[in-house]
């Protein structure tokens, strides 16, 4: 392996790596705009200029020293770009000296010549690479007195993407992403020199299912999301780590929350799952059901047939009483491939040890058209593997499966349904016989058709309000944490909060986002079980998971701590976890002042 020296630090870099990669692996950040580890090298922003040379040797091969005893280096007459220069044995790279810094300052000055500096109205402000580097590598004053170049603004490059030509610094990250990752070469540079701008090829639009990733990788605010545009400033949101529930890939995400409402969802780097990307479906569809149309209190159907708000303990007792009124084998328990492993485990335990029924299954959500060869999978639920592993599975020999449920209800074999986080009324066959069910107990996030018919409705927390684990399509178990405050998780330790979240008082309007009285599904199951004399004492999600690691084979050896450390662990391969490695973040949230 070639040995190189960066800023006096001896580094072993694999042959073929570029200087910027070798530096990043060793924690040295060379400023850059156009380089991205997943994209090809363009080398057009010139921000990563570094001084490259080799150690000066005398004729006999000995290393030469200057008068102070320092090793002398022969630097190349011109600076090299770190992103396109491969490492070579004995290379000396300097990223800190006056010469390097002045080159970077000069590049920044060039980039800022035609940049409109409209940060106050730009959505990228606060997480903008150009802002960050202006902070570190710029004088703060422009020497350019002439008129800036004007280019098209507010151009729709695709159904989700708005382009502002003046802000663009022509790094070509978006073009390379469209060509190489989204595989939809729909955008390109047109014109030359300072007139250069980005356009769609005639007759095309950039509508790839992954198109919105260009908004994340755009180092400036040239590409903005039509969905998020001007909703809020980035520093007003809190970002908590979560998992996308749009399909079974389980892309790692960060959930941006302001005023207890999800504002946007963005990908979080996990090289083993989604790398740096996620699909537009995940970004756009996974927050509406959290923000809107929620059931925020438990409800019981009264004698007049109306659903009325109730206390949690009353609702538990009512559910317990209803479940006692039918025989064990007349109860069907429906778990959920959209709920966490913890929820499903405790529901399965409840069905087997308290309700003593074999009728247990969950609804599968497949969409053949949704899947593709990159991230999207045909299984539209985030936790089908986990639900099965946790015990929510139908046994062929005994018990009722979801497919036969409608028949069993109409024949009168099933009289009670316990449904967790699933809208079974969406299945036409079951919806038609739902009125025949004597007891219908439902956990639900939203006001669904199933909840309308239920006798007891429990308000359950969505993924954004819960802590737990999902098992994705490759059987990787991943940990997610709450992003939204409910009455249940108000004191959850370690939740990242924005300044507004932290210091808001009851009379501030910005804190008036609804705090729902919902609970995690496993806690509801525990409540009902305890109302039926089970005496379970699970304190938090972690204690449920801890028990699972002892009783369920797939989760043996796991813990939340390990899952966080390795970015999720694959079932059955606990012994050989893959390391997280160096996680590259294109945009820092704050300028990294060195």
């Amino acid at each position, binding site marked *: 392996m070639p040995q190189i020296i960066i800023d006096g630090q001896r580094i072993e870099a694999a042959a073929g790596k570029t200087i910027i990669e070798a530096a990043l692996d060793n924690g040295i950040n060379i400023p850059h705009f156009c380089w991205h580890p997943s994209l090809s090298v363009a080398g057009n922003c010139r921000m990563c200029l570094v001084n490259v040379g080799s150690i000066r040797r005398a004729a006999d091969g000995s290393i030469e020293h200057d008068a102070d005893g320092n090793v002398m280096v022969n630097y190349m007459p011109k600076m090299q770009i770190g992103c396109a220069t491969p490492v070579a044995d004995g290379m000396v790279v300097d990223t800190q000296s006056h010469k390097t810094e002045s080159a970077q300052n000069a590049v920044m000055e060039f980039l800022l010549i035609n940049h409109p500096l*409209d940060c*106050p109205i730009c959505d990228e402000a606060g997480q903008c690479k150009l802002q960050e580097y202006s902070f570190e590598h710029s004088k703060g004053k422009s020497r350019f007195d002439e008129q800036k170049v004007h280019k098209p603004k*507010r151009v729709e490059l695709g159904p989700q993407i708005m382009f502002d030509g003046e802000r663009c610094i022509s790094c070509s990250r978006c073009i390379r992403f469209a060509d190489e990752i989204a595989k939809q070469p729909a955008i390109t540079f047109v014109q030359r020199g300072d007139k250069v701008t980005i356009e769609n090829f005639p007759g095309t639009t950039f509508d790839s299912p992954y198109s919105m990733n260009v908004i994340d990788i755009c180092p400036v605010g040239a590409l903005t999301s039509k969905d998020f545009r001007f909703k809020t400033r980035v520093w*007003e949101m809190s970002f908590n780590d979560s998992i996308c529930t749009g399909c079974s890939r389980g892309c790692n995400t960060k959930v941006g929350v302001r005023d207890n409402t999800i504002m946007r969802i963005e990908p979080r780097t996990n090289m083993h799952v989604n790398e740096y990307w996620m699909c537009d479906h995940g970004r756009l569809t996974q927050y509406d059901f959290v923000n809107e149309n929620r059931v925020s209190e438990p409800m019981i159907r009264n004698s007049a047939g109306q659903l009325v708000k109730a206390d949690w303990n009353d609702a538990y007792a009512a559910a317990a009483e209803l479940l006692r009124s039918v025989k064990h084998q007349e109860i069907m328990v429906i778990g959920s491939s959209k709920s966490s492993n913890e929820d499903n485990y405790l529901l399965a335990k409840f069905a087997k040890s308290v309700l003593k029924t074999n009728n247990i299954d969950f609804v599968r959500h497949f969409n053949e058209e949704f899947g593709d060869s990159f991230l999207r999978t045909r299984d539209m639920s985030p936790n089908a593997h986990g639900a099965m592993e946790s015990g929510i599975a139908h046994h062929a020999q005994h018990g009722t499966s979801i497919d036969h449920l409608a028949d069993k209800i109409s024949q009168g074999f099933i009289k009670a349904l316990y449904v967790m986080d699933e809208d079974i009324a969406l299945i036409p066959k079951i919806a038609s016989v739902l009125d025949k069910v004597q007891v219908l107990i439902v956990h639900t996030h939203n006001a669904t058709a199933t909840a309308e018919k239920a006798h007891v409705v429990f308000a359950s927390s969505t993924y954004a309000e819960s802590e737990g684990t999902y098992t994705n399509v490759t059987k990787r178990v991943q940990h997610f944490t709450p992003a939204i405050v409910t009455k249940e998780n108000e004191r959850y330790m370690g939740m990242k909060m924005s300044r507004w979240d932290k*210091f808001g008082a009851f*009379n501030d*309007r*910005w804190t008036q986002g609804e705090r729902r009285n919902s609970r995690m599904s496993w806690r509801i199951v525990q409540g009902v079980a305890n109302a039926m004399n089970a005496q379970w004492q699970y304190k938090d999600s972690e204690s449920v998971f801890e028990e699972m690691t002892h009783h369920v084979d797939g989760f043996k050896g796991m813990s939340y701590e390990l899952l966080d450390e390795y970015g999720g662990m694959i079932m059955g391969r606990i012994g050989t976890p893959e390391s997280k490695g160096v996680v590259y973040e294109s945009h820092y949230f704050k300028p990294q002042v060195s």
Partner: protein
Amino acid sequence: MNIEKNTEKQRLNFWEKIYLPEIARGLGMTFVEMFKPKVTRQYPEEVWNPTGSYRGRPVLVLEEDGERCVACGLCSRVCPALAIEVAAGETEKTKERYPIKFEINMLRCIYCGFCEEVCPEEAIVMSKDYDLVFEKQEDAILDKDQLLIPMAQLQDRLEFLRQYRR
């Protein structure tokens, strides 16, 4: 200091102890002041008009074609008391951002003027309003309509800022 040895008895002499000369001296002072020019003001009837340098209630500058504010949220970020809340929306104007909601909680505001200092558009300035009275907590949260003041009324402050800003 030893308190026991510093009693009134030890400190004051006879004339000071009976207070009478002191009363006479105080009344004398009152009589003299009666004939000097007055410095107090009959406040609610006689209103004080501060100069441009005065930091009263922060307001938004209203130009002919609408507010200057582009809802960048910097005032909200810099506000040490978290008094300001801004929500942005999109307009057809060149500056494509405008505040849908702009609220200042005057119970939180400490009149520091940081919002004015940080504003890149000179859209929020400190006015001369100092006599704010609210009957309810909700009334103290001023919305955009209450905050927008025509530019003509803010000339003193804008002139002051022009002169004294770096």
